[in-house]
């Protein structure tokens, strides 16, 4: 049995609107959240800090920038755009090794520390000049697997020294056991690599004669006997130094895509529109985190709509109807 005033109240549109708005508003205080699960990402970011990453063939805010600077900017953007609860760790790649700086930390609560650490990355942290990308990648995959996280490996794919004729090292892990992204840095046209002296000052670029263009470890390539001065015992690689483009660098996208396919990772270019958050979320292991979905805007918005109908629409509607009926009576 509903009390009479209440029944009377709910009998009218105005009463229903007002009571509805009040109930909705009161609900914002009682049940403001809905518990749902959202996606989060946990990844170890390993960044290539070898010499070729200093090549200035990327663009940052319309200005030319080195691949490393671009990578730092993109990774800082990634840290800022991942949902809270995501975790990122940081490691360096040079030579053939991966050096862990810190294990994954929270991207929101520890953002200042993470952002500062990314900003402080420098090629001068490197310990050796070699850049054996495939070996470094495999070690990074092992490290990420150890930490139980996914991997983001940022590199230009420039192997230095070049891979021997029989190809690079083989991946011995289980493809797809560690998920994640290989991120290709650099432009598609070969560009000169800056050169630094032993005090870290830039002294020009690498020339063709400064770098080896062929790896002469292991057996020679099958077509070596057609080279000039070839001698099976004394000059198995031919007599002349191999010509090449190893002093110039561009992103080795085909090579990196091949490595990605071999290891079960996904590939994304560094300058992917919209940043790396999308590709990483798509490639990463789905991890759930509890999210509290705020219901208050929905409840409050509906209550506001009810009040606007009550104060705005209904009076004018009633007035219009009355005018129409008055005109009708007058006729």
């Amino acid at each position, binding site marked *: 049995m509903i009390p009479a005033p209440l029944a009377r109240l709910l009998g009218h549109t105005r009463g229903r609107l007002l009571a509805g708005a009040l109930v909705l508003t009161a609900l914002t*205080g009682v049940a403001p959240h809905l518990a749902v699960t959202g996606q989060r990402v946990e990844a170890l970011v390993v960044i290539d800090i070898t010499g070729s990453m200093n090549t200035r063939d990327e663009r940052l805010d319309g200005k030319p920038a080195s691949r490393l600077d671009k990578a730092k900017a993109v990774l800082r953007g990634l840290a800022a755009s991942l949902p809270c609860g995501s975790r990122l760790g940081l490691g360096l790649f040079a030579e053939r090794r991966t*050096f862990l700086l810190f294990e994954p930390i*929270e991207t929101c609560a*520890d953002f*200042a520390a*993470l952002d500062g650490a990314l900003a402080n990355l420098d090629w001068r942290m490197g310990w050796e000049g070699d850049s054996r990308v495939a070996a470094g990648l495999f070690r990074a995959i092992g490290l990420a697997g150890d930490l139980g996280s996914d991997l983001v490996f940022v590199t230009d794919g420039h192997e230095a020294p070049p891979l021997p004729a029989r190809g690079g090292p083989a991946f011995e892990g289980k493809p797809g056991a560690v998920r994640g992204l290989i991120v290709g840095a650099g432009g598609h046209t070969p560009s000169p690599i800056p050169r630094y002296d032993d005090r870290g000052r830039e002294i020009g670029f690498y020339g063709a004669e400064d770098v080896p263009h062929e790896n002469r470890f292991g057996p020679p390539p099958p077509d070596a006997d057609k080279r000039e001065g070839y001698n099976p015992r004394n000059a198995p690689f031919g007599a002349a130094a191999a010509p090449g483009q190893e002093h110039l660098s561009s992103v080795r996208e085909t090579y990196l895509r091949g490595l990605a396919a071999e290891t079960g990772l996904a590939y994304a270019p560094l300058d992917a529109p919209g940043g790396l958050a999308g590709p990483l979320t798509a490639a990463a292991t789905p991890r759930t985190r509890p999210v509290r979905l705020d219901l208050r805007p929905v409840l409050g918005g509906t209550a*506001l709509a009810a009040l606007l109908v009550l104060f705005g629409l209904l009076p004018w509607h009633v007035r219009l109807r009355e005018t129409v009926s008055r005109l009708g009576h007058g006729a």
Partner: protein
Amino acid sequence: MTAGLMALVSRFGVTAPAWLWLLPLALMPLVASSQKRIPVPSLAMVPADGLSRLVDAVLTLAGMAAIGFLILALAGPHLVGESLMRTGEGAQISLLIDRSGSMNETFAGRQPSGPEESKAAASRRILEGFVGRRAHDLVAVSAFSTSPMAVLPMTDRHDAVRAAIRAIDRPGLEATNVARGLGLALAQFGPGAPQASRVLLLVSDGAAIIDRRVQPTLREEFAKIRPTLYWLFLRTAGSPGLGDRPAGEDTPQAAPERHLDLFFKSLGVPYRAFEAESAQAVEEAIREIDRQERKPISYTERRPQRDLTGFAYGLAALAMALLLAAKLAETDLAVRASASRPAASRETRRAA
């Protein structure tokens, strides 16, 4: 009082300011009422009375408040968090950690096997505890081997610091280039808070020659920043200690540890070296540092921002409850002809 109010107003903010464009809609109750319209043949029938006007004004205001506070609540009002300067016990600590390959060996100079702990694993465990015990410290982490590596900038987020400390027993690199590492660890202090107590804690298991050309620069930096320098020297059993003179010539090449110690002593900053030959000794040394570095430090505590959304919804609900009460008191002229009560007259007045 006014200053306090101004401070409060300056801290007020909204998350979604676009909603505030709807605020003019709160004026709608001025031209229309939520109450029922009752046709009255003539306004002259209704006597003018003050109470009706008051009730009318209150209801109009309640309508405006209901719409206004709902819009405000949707915009997400809050008070921005304050930064409070507080005083506690702590220091700015710049950790400089040796990540050379020998750190992955035990104190006996072997590869760890079974329950044995490598020097890196022992320092990891003990440093993690150290950071955990000291709530108000700012900590920066740097590592060095062949080259210095800035791991984490000065931060109060201790779980980030612990994540960096947990990385130190991962395989290290070859060489020990302590000079550049020291330069980086000094740079980590940054320009801020010169009155804070500054601590440079070097954890290494060996030393290297500091180039004579670099020495003046390092001296200058130490003199400028004036940190308290602690060297936690993880000595491998049987290797020379800091005080042992080498049998032959006493040169930095022959006894790098001893000469690094001498260099530190000559810097003119408070300096103490701890020689640890076991995990227990490391533990004791760290406890000693913990005791020493308990000086008052002023630090900023950030208060989280206070959400006022619930408050705004509450006010909107209150206004609506008032409107609803008026609605419940509504009377039909046609049903109850005895419209003598003032409460009944207000609707008629409003309707007119």
